[in-house]
């Protein structure tokens, strides 16, 4: 049975590879040059880096839905939490986390990572960087903090958690629909204030992205303490 499965998989993937290769070599010439269009519209976008301009100005609908996807993933992670597991950040007692080297490294890394995140956020306006990179660094800080056996601040895990998770999507949506009040299309920032709108949205997005990524890590169900899980009886 497994042998048949392997043969079928090999045949199918060879076929897909051949089809893709044919499609790559026998493709039509593109009719529009998006790079030129972006370059023409860049001065009016409010930012200097073309990728940031595409993400938050020309195709900001994608970014709005992207943060919505992150929020949905975090909500599902919260819903799938083990109801009997202790709330908040409980260090795993099986891990040797209370070592002096690890604690000092984390203490030294914390300010550096926060500064790096703020720098990446700011750099997104004129060079590679932006909200996701900054949020990923902040989330990594939370992961390192947690892995080193420290507790995250309690209020961050209870009272503020939902606010932090939803802030990015909520603010983006409010900003997007506020444009309708000024008789502009959805997500069409005013040319004069585009820079400030983009900076404001990116800052809040950073925090929400970090919160969502961290929630996906923290709320992962614990591995069963024994090596092999015992099937749980259904009531």
């Amino acid at each position, binding site marked *: *049975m497994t042998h048949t499965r392997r043969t079928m998989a090999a045949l199918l993937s060879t076929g897909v590879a051949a089809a893709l290769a044919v499609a790559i070599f026998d493709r039509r010439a593109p009719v529009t040059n998006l790079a030129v269009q972006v370059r023409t519209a860049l001065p009016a976008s409010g930012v200097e880096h073309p990728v940031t301009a*595409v993400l938050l100005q020309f195709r900001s609908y*994608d970014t709005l839905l*992207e943060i919505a*996807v992150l929020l949905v993933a975090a909500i599902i*992670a919260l819903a*799938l939490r083990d109801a009997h597991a202790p709330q908040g950040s409980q260090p795993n007692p099986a891990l040797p986390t209370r070592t002096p080297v690890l604690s000092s490294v984390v203490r030294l890394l914390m300010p550096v990572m926060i500064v790096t995140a703020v720098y990446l956020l700011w750099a997104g306006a004129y060079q590679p960087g932006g909200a996701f990179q900054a949020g990923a660094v902040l989330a990594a800080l939370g992961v390192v903090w947690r892995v080193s056996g420290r507790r995250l601040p309690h209020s961050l895990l209870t009272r503020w958690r939902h606010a932090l998770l939803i802030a990015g999507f909520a603010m983006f949506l409010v900003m997007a629909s506020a444009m309708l009040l000024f008789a502009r299309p959805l997500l069409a920032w005013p040319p004069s204030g585009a820079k400030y709108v983009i900076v404001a949205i990116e800052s809040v997005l950073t925090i929400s992205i970090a919160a969502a990524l961290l929630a996906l890590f923290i709320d992962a169900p614990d591995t069963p303490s024994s090596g092999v899980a015992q099937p749980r009886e259904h009531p």
Partner: protein
Amino acid sequence: MSRELWFALIGALLFALALGAFLSHTHLLRRLLAFNIMGSGSFLLLVGLSQDMRGPDPVPQALVLTGIVVAVASTALALILLRRWFAATGSTTLPEDSAE
């Protein structure tokens, strides 16, 4: 052959290899890894093909960046589901696959 076209071909190869791995393995973690590599292959294909002979194009780059964020989130979610599945059943495969 330009460098971008080479990227696109490598992307197509990665996609096909990962598709084979996805179909031939039943362990859910292996499937998740294969699925991620399929995603990386399609990102490489998208960026490489759209920039072939035309220089950097920010639009596909931004699309791929968005795709990477969604891929990270969905991978983390799949891992959570996998751990719940393992905690609930003690199995790392789906019932229809473990019948083999």
